[in-house]
């Protein structure tokens, strides 16, 4: 018996993408909540970079020790990249706050789109598996 979903590269990658997109959305929520907080600096991380390192980490995972052939490997949970570098081009206001409403709004919908893309791709993969199982059981 093998795990039909964790053996699937697409589902695994999109799983990471879902996690990272929702994490990034939390950063955007924080930036928008602190729109008027003096001295607050924009928090963000590179979605592409984080996904890339998550996927690369998947290829050579720090695997769990398994003492039995039936043990699950367990997916390596990608830890959030901690860097929250200040954005260079952002003009800082008089109160030391550098949140840009337009940038955050744009990122909000873009990240939402990325999340929905990833979830749709997972759904497509699962539908393929479902059709496969249904075809097999029909005969």
């Amino acid at each position, binding site marked *: 018996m093998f795990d039909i979903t964790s053996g699937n590269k697409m589902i695994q990658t999109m799983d990471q993408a879902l*996690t990272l*997109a929702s994490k990034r959305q939390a950063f955007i*929520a924080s930036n*928008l*909540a602190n729109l008027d907080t003096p001295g607050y600096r924009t928090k963000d991380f590179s979605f592409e970079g984080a996904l890339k390192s998550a996927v690369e980490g998947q290829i050579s995972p720090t695997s769990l020790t398994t003492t039995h052939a039936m043990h699950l490997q367990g997916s390596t949970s990608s830890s959030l990249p901690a860097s929250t570098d200040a954005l260079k081009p952002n003009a800082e206001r008089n109160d030391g706050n550098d949140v840009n409403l337009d940038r955050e709004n744009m990122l909000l919908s873009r990240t*939402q789109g990325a999340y*929905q893309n990833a979830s749709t791709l997972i759904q497509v993969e699962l539908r393929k598996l*479902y059709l496969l199982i249904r075809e097999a059981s029909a005969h």
Partner: protein
Amino acid sequence: MSIKQILDIASTGMAAQRLRVQLIAANIANSETTRTKEGGPYRRKDAVFASKDLGFAGALANAGVRIAGVKTSQEPFLTRFEPGHPDADPDGVVSYPNVNPVEEMVNLTEASRAYEANIAVVRAAKAMATSALDILRVQ
């Protein structure tokens, strides 16, 4: 679960902006008030924002926002020459609150835009949660 984090962060932003609108409403309502409990005309009140620790790990440690305090403006009162007014001084000059309606309107617009930005975050988080649930609908 990051979707819950997103909603928590956005709700602190909404609460902070709502209190700010309440203060603006008080300022506009009292723009002609010459008698207060503390004595003298009404003084303009303004919210001071500060970031808030919601107990999230890593870079999201200070993700929320809170009202650190309400600042009472010490700017000079507006004066008008109204000798018949019961609160006029011996020279016939009445001190009116240091509320500038134009400033209040600008702040009101800013606060409601910031509130809307937080609403947009909530809406995005809801759409993401829905699309994640859609993964279950394979057939």
